[in-house]
């Protein structure tokens, strides 16, 4: 990392929600973090960096909250193949001061690419983040790798397709994409299958997970399934541009007679003499059993009242 953070900001010291009793605006700190995998080959530095900064700040989410780190993780590969227009490789100077008198240093972009190829992109994104206490922590969501290899194969199952208005990921020409490319799976958005079937694993004889690992996988699936965001249903064609809510067909998978039925339908059914079907979820209460249980309780209460000191029988031998 090309600089040192001097002090952790107060907002990041606590864990999870801001527990001050103040109203929190939706998800905030606990927003789901996606992983985006981006190939920076032949992308212009600044244009790419502005899109990455947007993802890292979280401005593509309607649950954006500027007081909290709510962005997504971004992994960028092939950062050494990034482009700068015109003469910038020769003319663009990275400047810094060492603190000593006469310590102003300059480095042209081509030299930065030789020594630290990933910093060209990193500095661009760093400069595009809002300059506040969260800048350092937002920048940590970005991982830049100069070559095609990255360490995040375990997060590929959380990889998400880029939002449709982020269009910088132009496909390279076919001549540049050999079939043996190890990063071919990043060219198209891709989700790893979480678990193969047991028979397939055992037939191959390659890998048989232990019971502990299987339970772990089940937990992962359970978590993944139940944290899915709301799926927007396929709405019918709006026709001339408006939804006719009242004439849509109503789906009624359950058979309750007192919930969500339109009054007209109820009247129609009654007039026709149709009774609503019996609800399978309701259990019939056995009244005889109930009264018997109540009588037992009363008997026990009377027994307790007759014996005023039932707890005096204690053994004092344990002292």
């Amino acid at each position, binding site marked *: 990392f090309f600089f040192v953070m001097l002090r952790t900001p107060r907002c990041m010291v606590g864990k999870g929600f801001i527990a001050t009793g103040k109203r929190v605006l939706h998800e905030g700190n606990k927003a789901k973090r996606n992983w985006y995998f981006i190939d920076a080959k032949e992308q212009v530095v600044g244009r790419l960096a502005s899109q990455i900064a947007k993802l890292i700040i979280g401005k*593509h989410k309607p649950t954006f909250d500027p007081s909290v780190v709510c962005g997504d993780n971004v992994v960028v590969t092939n950062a050494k193949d990034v482009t700068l227009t015109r003469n910038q490789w020769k003319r663009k100077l990275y400047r810094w001061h060492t603190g000593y008198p006469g310590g102003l240093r300059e480095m042209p972009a081509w030299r930065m690419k030789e020594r630290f190829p990933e910093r060209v992109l990193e500095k661009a994104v760093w400069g595009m983040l809002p300059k506040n206490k969260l800048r350092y922590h937002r920048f940590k969501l970005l991982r830049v790798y100069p070559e095609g290899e990255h360490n995040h194969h375990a997060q590929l199952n959380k990889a998400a397709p880029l939002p449709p*208005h982020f269009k910088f990921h132009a496909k390279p020409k076919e001549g540049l994409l050999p079939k043996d490319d190890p990063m071919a799976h990043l060219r198209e958005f891709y989700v790893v299958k979480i678990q193969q079937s047991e028979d397939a694993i055992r037939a191959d004889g390659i890998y048989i997970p232990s019971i502990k690992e299987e339970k772990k996988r089940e937990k992962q699936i359970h978590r993944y399934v139940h944290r899915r965001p709301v799926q927007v249903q396929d709405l019918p064609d*709006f026709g001339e541009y408006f939804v006719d809510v009242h004439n849509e067909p109503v789906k009624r998978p359950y058979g309750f007679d007192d919930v969500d039925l339109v009054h007209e339908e109820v009247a129609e059914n009654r007039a026709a003499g149709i009774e609503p079907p019996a609800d399978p979820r309701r259990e019939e209460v056995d009244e005889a059993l109930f009264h018997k249980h109540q009588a037992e309780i009363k008997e026990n209460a009377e027994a307790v009242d007759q014996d005023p000191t039932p707890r005096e029988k204690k053994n004092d031998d344990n002292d």
Partner: protein
Amino acid sequence: VFFAFMVNHAKILKLSKGYRGAANNIFRVSIQAVYRAQTNQYKDRKHRKRSYRTLWIARINAAVQYYGVNYSRFMGYYSKLGIGLNRKMLAELAVSEPISFRAIATYVVSQFKDVEEARLIPARERAKLWVTRDTLTDEQNAMTQVFVDALNKKTKE
């Protein structure tokens, strides 16, 4: 409370609870901090309204991008349609009622589909459309046809 000044000082010192050092104890120091705090409170009651509005706008912008527009164009169309919801409610819908928000957004965008398509046409062709508007009289239309023909000739060449 023995003297009259204690009543007034107590009011200020009560407001300065939690301040650092002498500012929560000593009247002469705390009055300065309390002045600043009160003026900031007054200011920020006005700022609060602005900052919430910027938040709502940022959220609507993010949500509306998925429908092919940005906030500025969306609001331009939205205000012409007469749906009465304010930005606060639109942002709430975008987060917690995505289906309703989708209905609103698709309705708004579809009402102005022709405007959006016209934006994609390059400027020269857009000029041709502009020239043949219905608001012109027949004479004016006939006059402008001359220019349209000239433009067509240029593009062909």
